[in-house]
C-alpha cells in the first residue's frame, strides 16, 4: 500500500436518486496498470470525473502522492500530475493536432501569461508536443485539424495530450473504443511500454486488452466495487461472471 500514487477512500456520489458511486475505495501503484471494468452505466466515467475534478464527490477522499486533492480544481489537479483522456473525446476541433498537444506542453512549462513570443515558431513547445505524438504513432498527423481525424485518432491525440503533461498518473477512459482490432492491438502495445513510466488507471471494454495489460482489475457494478484481484482471480470469480462477463 505504501507505494500507492493515487488512493481513493470511501468515495460516494449521487445523481438525484441514482447512487453513481457507492463507497468506492481503490488505489493505483507505481508501475502498474489497474483496470476498472464494469457494464455500461456502472459509474466508471463518473469515477474518473471525480478523480480529475470535473465532478465533486458527495463524500470520501482522493489522494495523489499522499496529498488530498478533492478540493482542488481540474487545472490544479492536472498541474499536480493527473493526466486523463475522455470517453467522448474533448479536443479543440478546428485546431491542428499539434496545437492541441502544445497547449499541454505550455501548461507544463508554467504560466500562460506571456503575450509576446509567437508559439508557432517556439521549438520548446513544438518539440515535446511532437515527441508525445510520436509515442502515440501520430506524428504524421501533426498538422491535420482534429475535425478531420477518425474516432480512434482522436483518442490517440487525447492520450498524447495527457502524456505531454508528463503526468504522475494516467486516467484513460475507454481509449480503445472505436479503434478496431488492429488499432487496439497497437495501442495495447503502446500502453504496455508506458506503464513503467506512469501508472495507469484504465477503463476498458476490450477484455483481451484488459487481461493482457492489467496487473490488477476492479469490477464496478452499480457504483460499487464488487470484486478485485488479478486477471486469473477476476476470470474465476463467479459473481463477476454473472454480473459482467455474463457468459
Amino acid at each position, binding site marked *: 500500500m505504501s507505494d500507492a500514487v493515487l488512493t481513493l477512500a470511501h468515495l460516494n456520489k449521487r445523481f438525484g436518486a441514482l447512487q453513481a458511486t457507492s463507497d468506492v475505495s481503490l488505489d493505483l501503484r507505481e508501475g502498474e496498470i489497474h483496470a476498472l471494468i464494469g457494464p455500461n452505466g456502472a459509474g466508471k466515467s463518473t469515477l474518473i470525473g471525480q478523480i*480529475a475534478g*470535473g465532478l465533486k464527490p458527495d463524500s470520501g477522499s482522493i489522494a495523489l502522492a499522499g496529498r488530498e486533492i478533492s478540493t482542488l*480544481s*481540474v*487545472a*490544479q489537479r*492536472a*498541474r499536480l500530475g493527473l493526466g*486523463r483522456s*475522455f470517453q467522448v473525446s*474533448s*479536443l*479543440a*476541433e*478546428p*485546431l*491542428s493536432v*499539434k*496545437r*492541441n498537444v*502544445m*497547449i*499541454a506542453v*505550455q*501548461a*507544463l512549462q508554467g504560466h*500562460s*501569461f*506571456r*503575450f*509576446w*513570443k*509567437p*508559439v*508557432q*515558431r*517556439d*521549438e520548446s*513547445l*513544438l*518539440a515535446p508536443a*511532437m515527441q508525445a505524438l*510520436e509515442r502515440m504513432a501520430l*506524428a*504524421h498527423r*501533426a*498538422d491535420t*485539424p482534429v475535425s478531420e481525424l477518425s474516432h480512434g485518432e482522436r483518442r490517440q491525440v487525447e492520450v498524447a*495530450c495527457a502524456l505531454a*503533461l508528463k503526468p504522475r498518473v494516467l486516467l484513460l477512459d475507454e481509449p480503445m473504443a472505436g479503434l478496431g482490432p488492429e488499432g487496439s492491438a497497437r495501442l495495447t502495445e503502446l500502453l504496455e511500454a508506458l506503464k513503467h513510466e506512469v501508472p495507469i488507471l484504465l477503463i476498458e471494454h476490450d477484455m483481451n486488452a484488459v487481461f493482457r495489460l492489467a496487473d490488477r482489475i476492479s469490477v464496478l457494478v452499480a457504483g460499487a466495487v464488487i470484486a478485485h484481484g488479478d486477471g486469473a482471480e477476476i476470470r474465476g470469480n463467479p459473481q463477476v461472471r454473472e454480473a459482467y462477463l455474463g457468459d
Partner: protein
Amino acid sequence: MTKSDTRILAPQPGLPAPTASWHDRKGLVQIGLLALLLLAPLAAHFLGHVYYVNLASRVTLVAMAAVGLNLAIGYGGMVSFGHAAYFGLGGYVAGISAYHAFDLTPVIGWPVAIPGSDSMLAIWLVAIVVCGLLALAIGAVSLRTTGVYFIMITLAFAQMIYYFANSWPTYGGEDGLPIYLRNTLPIVDTNDALTFFLICFGGLTLSLALTSRIMKSRFGAALTMARLNDTRLATAGIAPYPIRLVAFVISAMITGLAGALYADLNGFVSPTMLSWHMSGELMVIVILGGVGRLYGPLAGAILYVMMETLLGGLTEYWKLFLGLVLLLVVLFAKYGVMGWLAGRERHE
C-alpha cells in the same frame, strides 16, 4: 519519426513565414482596407473637405473600439453587451480631465489633490488604467456566468453606469459634458483635423498589431483554447477563468482608449456613449465585419458608418436597412465582410 521531421514544421530561414503576407488574399484585403482608410481623408484634406476627414476619424475610432470588443467576443468567446461602459468611461476621462484643466479645479481634492489635465498622453494613460480596473471588477463577476447570463450581466453593469452618469449633475448629467478646447499633445497641433485623424489611425493600427501579436502568443493560444474547449484547457492544467479575465481587461482598455479619443473628436461626451445602443452598435460592427477576424472591426466600421452617412442622409429609418444588411450577413455571409472578401479563416 526523427528529429529532422520536426524541423520541417518550423519555417525555413529565407522563406517567408506562413502568415499573412503581401501575396495572399487576406493580406491584400487587410492592406487595402488600411490604405482606403488612410488615403480617403488625405484626399479629402487636400480637396479641403474637413467634414470627411473627421468622418474618417469617426470610422477609425469606432473601428478601434470594436477591435477591443472583438478581442472579447471573437477571440475570447465572451459576448459582452456592455462595452459602451468602457467606451463611455474613456470618454468621460477625457471630458472630466479637460473640464478641470479648464476650470483649474482638482478632479479629486482628497486624500491627494489630483489636478485636471489637457494632456492627451496623461488622459490616455488614465483612461486605460480606469477602464482596465472597471473591467477587472465587472469581468470578475460576469465571467462566473456563461452564455445568455453573461450577455445580460454585462449589459446590466453597463446600464448601471449609464444611469449613474445620467443622474450625476456635476458633469452635466444627461446633458453631457462639452470639451471646450481639444486636449493637447506635445509638438503637434491636435486641432488640425488631419493631424487628429493620424493620431486615431495610429491608435487603430497599434491595437490591431497588439491584438495580432497577443493572439499568436502563449496567452493567445490559451485564450483560443478557452473559447474552443475550456475543458481541454483545464485538463491541460490551465485555469480558463484568469485567462478570460485578463483578455476581458485588455479588451476594455482598447475600447476605453478609443472612447477617450472619440470624446476629443466630438468635443463632447454624454451618457449616449455609455448607453446600450452604443454597446449594440459595436457588436453590430464586429458581426458585420466578421467575428474573430483581425480586420473585421475595420471592415464593419467602414460599412456601418458609410450606411449611416449615406442612408442616414436619405431616411431616418436607415437602421431598418442596417437590420436588413445584418440579416443578410448572418444568413449568407456567416463570416462577415472579411469572410466574404478574404475567405474563411484557417487555424494552423
